[in-house]
């Protein structure tokens, strides 16, 4: 199991040093102080269309992504801070549009969306096993379909259910 603490400490440490150009000193400070988790959740909400995302899982995804490719992760975090300097945790369509402009960051954003929707992605063999099980159970695809995940009994008999 991953330690969530390690995740947050690690990722904050990674991005703490970035001061982004073009921002007022105050906004920069505010943005830099905002934990990565809030930034990541803000982006995740915009990408997935769900507001109430599982924060534990978010922490796991962050650790995974940050450890797998620290440079790209840092680039994403600092880009998001530039775009969303107000510190309000809701990334919006403008953020998405801006990410689309960067091939690298857009690919990462797509992967984040995939992680939330399926619990894994094509690159997913690398996703640690504990995350994948939780990621599958919590996969947003099931919420979209209003179903329990395949393999989880929904709590009523099939014989009496209505489609």
């Amino acid at each position, binding site marked *: 199991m991953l330690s969530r603490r390690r995740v947050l400490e690690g990722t904050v440490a990674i991005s703490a040093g970035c001061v982004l150009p073009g921002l007022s000193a105050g906004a920069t400070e505010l943005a830099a102080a905002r934990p990565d988790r809030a930034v990541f959740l803000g982006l995740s909400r915009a990408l997935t269309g769900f507001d109430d995302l599982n924060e534990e899982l978010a922490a796991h995804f962050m650790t995974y992504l940050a450890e797998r490719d620290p440079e790209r992760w840092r680039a994403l975090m600092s880009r998001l801070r530039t775009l969303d300097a107000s510190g309000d945790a809701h990334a919006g369509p403008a953020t998405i549009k801006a990410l689309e402009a960067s091939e690298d960051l857009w690919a990462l954003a797509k992967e984040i969306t995939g992680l939330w929707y399926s619990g894994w992605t094509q690159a997913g063999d690398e996703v640690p096993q504990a995350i994948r099980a939780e990621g599958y159970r919590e996969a947003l695809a099931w919420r979209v*379909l209003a179903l329990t995940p395949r393999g989880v*009994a929904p709590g009523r008999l099939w014989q009496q259910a209505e489609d």
Partner: protein
Amino acid sequence: MEQFDVVIVGAGVAGGLTADALAQRGHRVLVLEAGPDEQDRDALREIYFATPQKGFDSPYRNPAQAPKPTRTPVNDYYVQKGPAQFGSTYERRVGGTTWHWHGLTPRLMPADFRMRSTYGVGLDWPISYDDLEPWYLAAEHEMGVTGDSADDHGSPRSGDFPYPAQRQSALDLAIKAALRGKRVRDVELDVTAHRAARNPEICQGSGSCMPLCPTGAKYEAVTHLNRARAMGAVVRPKSVASRIVVTENGDVSSILYKTWDGEERAVAGKVFVLAANAMETPRLLLLSAAAGGPPVANRSGQVGRNLMDHPLQLSFAVAADPFTLYTGPQSTSVIKAFRDGPWRRSEAAFRIEIFNTGGGAFGGPDRAVARLIDQGLTGTALRAALADAAGRELLLVGEAEQLPDPENRIVLSASERDGLGLPRPEIHYAYDDYTTRGLAAIREVQGFVFDQMGASRVFHLPQILGSGHIMGTTRMGDDPASSVVNTDLQCHDHPNLFIVGSGVYPTGATANPTLTIAAFALRLADHLHKGRLR
């Protein structure tokens, strides 16, 4: 040497039902099982959930000492010599392949036993449907099968099913409505509920019969193995039978088996029953001869030959309107109209299963998710598009008949060995014109069904898959020159050696094989109890 009344090799449904029926009658039973005994359903489910690309074999490990063929991904346990790839797999563990089976339990039809005399192809079985009928009924009750007792599906019945028919899905009913009164290839199509070993008083439609039932509603052979244990039977996991020892008078004196540590042990019995499935049973017979002894049960030269499957043709399409998919038993209905008819003179019969799974039969709608994300969708647009797309993913699975061909066979690999040093199965396999024509007919009918539904973007998977229905490799017959066992499942060459499983089927027909395996197991136990074990 340890001594039992009955030594059974293989703890699947064949071995489990035989063991249970004999232990209930007071016989001392040992079941040797190559694989582990791991029944912790929750732990298995965690492994399944954590597997990225989910398949029907995801939860079950593949130990070097009792390796198995796998489908997702395809591994190299079989040494495939082609020209076609043999796609069917199994589990090696206490409970065998019923851990991941689908639970469908049709009976064979009377004509399936008389292919040569009715249609001039294949061969007749040395027993008839009527001989097996009482055992079918007993097996349906042992396994807890659902079905409408008033509708025999062309297989006459002497009694009722223990449970009523399972509820058909909304998709099934929509297809039924679309096909009402429609004919294709001059046959009227029907959509009826499967017979299935899924207890409707427990089944919650969790959609994971393959690979694992979370509620225990689906029949699994561990039910009978655990019950046999409670009656005193010994089920010994991690014990790989490696040689059958035959005396000069033809009787089997003992079976040698290897523990996972590589230690060799021997066990004696009055009667020996091979129930290691239609791949591993012939492998064991061939291993016994290869170990330096005389050929075992192979005077006919038929051991390992006539390998059959029900080759699968998958067809996908996009429905005109979305359904609730990705839930419910993976398939609840069958189109059975092509199981028997005059076309069997020249082309394979087949069944069509309607899948409730959407395109991702074993996990979530990952393909649709990946496609929509790739198109750049995010947020509420992504949510709406996924809800729509996943509900339109149609899947029909046609299962074709295959005739026995002695050149389709399993032999021992001369070069490749498993973790205990035993030669792995080498497979020679092809589809003949009979089956190829049947597969083309499946595409035609599945395309017709989609058309009637107003579905679009029909896609027939070019790759033909295996159904998991391995049959024919130790065939039953009256003539010792052309068959391995007689109608009592007794090896022609060895009076106290019996084989139970789909290996004994002379022809494959279109029924999923396991109910027939179960019927044979109950019949064999009765025969042994009244005969050699008396």
